[in-house]
């Protein structure tokens, strides 16, 4: 394979991977963040305990989380095909990533919010803050550094999932690594994609930590 061809191939894979990872992460947060918040708020020592909701939602989250990603993706394929018209490629993978990652994100968010000092929430209540104000102005802001760290971890995890999806025709760098490394036996290409993935993870990790530290006012 020519170098230019290789670069083109990798470039396309990189774009697909980034697309799947970022879109899936974003949508997972759109779904997972409110779920994570609701789990904290409705827990028995939350600001609005709702036992049945907390139990049911906690159960659903756990069930989805305990299914390995590849199996989940294969199980979801027929449904995804029905909805978006195809069971393979970046769109299908992105859809599966969202289903797998949203519960994961919910738990990450829950963990971060758990770190918020109960005394501060109580202080806000004593000042007459509504529950919505407490969520928006106290919990999410006080947990911001931890939430951002969590987002970096989530993005990297989703990147890993997207690479796995390559093994079943999911597109992106993982797909390239499998196709060329395994089926066409071109280990060099496989290793190059692996290196690109490693660099991608490093960059995401660094960006995540940097932003989280920069936006943390506890340590200056």
């Amino acid at each position: 394979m020519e170098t230019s061809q290789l670069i083109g191939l990798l470039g396309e894979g990189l774009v697909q991977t980034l697309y799947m990872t970022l879109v899936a992460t974003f949508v997972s947060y759109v779904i997972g963040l409110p779920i994570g918040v609701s789990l904290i708020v409705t827990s028995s020592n939350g600001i609005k305990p709702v036992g049945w909701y907390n139990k049911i939602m906690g159960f659903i989250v756990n069930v989805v989380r305990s299914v390995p990603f590849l199996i989940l993706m294969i199980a979801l394929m027929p449904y995804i095909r029905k909805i978006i018209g195809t069971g393979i490629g970046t769109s299908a993978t992105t859809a599966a990533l969202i289903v797998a990652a949203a519960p994961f994100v919910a738990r990450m968010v829950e963990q971060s919010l758990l770190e918020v000092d109960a005394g501060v929430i109580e202080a806000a209540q004593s000042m007459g803050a509504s529950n919505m104000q407490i969520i928006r102005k106290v919990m999410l802001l006080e947990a911001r550094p931890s939430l951002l760290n969590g987002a970096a971890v989530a993005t990297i995890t989703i990147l890993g999932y997207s690479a796995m999806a390559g093994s079943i025709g999911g597109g992106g760098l993982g797909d390239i690594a499998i196709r060329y490394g395994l089926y066409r036996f071109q280990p060099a290409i496989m290793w190059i994609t692996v290196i690109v993935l490693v660099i991608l993870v490093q960059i995401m990790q660094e960006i995540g930590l940097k932003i989280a530290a920069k936006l943390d006012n506890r340590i200056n």
Partner: protein
Amino acid sequence: MSDTIISLQGVTKEFETKSGKVVALKDINLDIKAGDAYGIIGLSGAGKSTLVRTINLLETPTEGKVIFDGENLMSLKQSELNQKRHKISMIFQQFNLLMQRDAIGNVCFPLELAGVPKKEAEAKAMELLKVVDLEERAHSYPSQLSGGQKQRVAIARALASDPEVILCDEATSALDPKTTRAILALLKKINEERGITLVVITHEMDVIKQICKDVAIIESGEIVEKGDVQEIFAHPKTPAAKKLFFPDGQKELTGKTSTKSRLRLVFDGKDAHKPIISRMIMELKAPVNFLYADMDVVDGVQKGTMVICLSDDPEIAEKQRAFLIKEDVVFTELEVEGEVE
């Protein structure tokens, strides 16, 4: 003038725990006058925090009524209660500041909750930071401030909503003695100059002595004694009060002087500046023995108790008593154990 601002009526609070029911408050009846500095003192676990948290309904009583400004808070909807809470601020032992906001941001917080425009809120917050002497730290974050400074920010924040009452739950318990005095002086000033009612929860007598006008003593969830600080200080009735006011006890006052009359003198402030005892000694030319003294400055005046032993000559002892009565000194005869003669 002395309207009741807070009234707890038959307040009982029970907690359901895994190990059974905990009765944290038992039939509490308490009236707090507007402008008062009301202390609630008791040992750890007595129910002080639970009590103060029922005043703004952070804790909902199992039974009883919480009346604020003539309104039963328990009959309000959550949104109405939130409005009322703007008028009842609270400060805490652990300060409970928002760690991700700077000092001025923390003071702005209650204003933001109330929907005050940002510019206006910041101007007011700056004024309040001046009141607590922290204007030059307006843009410091809590992690950059000392405990005393954090509590000052919390006090400024408490003032932001123009409250009628500030509840203080062990507000100085995490601070060193010097900072404690400064914070208490600030609270006292706020009470006196702005007429804001203070409810001061503490386990430390010194805090009560320094700023409170009235006090209630709470023990195992019950108010065992309450009233004017000076009055209770002068005439503690219950064992709980005596223990709090005279932690050293007076049991050590036994021994060789047992046949002599012993008096406990109470100085409630009026006369403490006059050297009564030394004048008595000079005028009657008879000595007295000092057995115990616990004098203190409460609310700016000298007060305390003193136990003295009168002359063993009954005639002189009688004169000494007459002198004390003439000088209006409050005293009680102490029983003398093991009297033989």
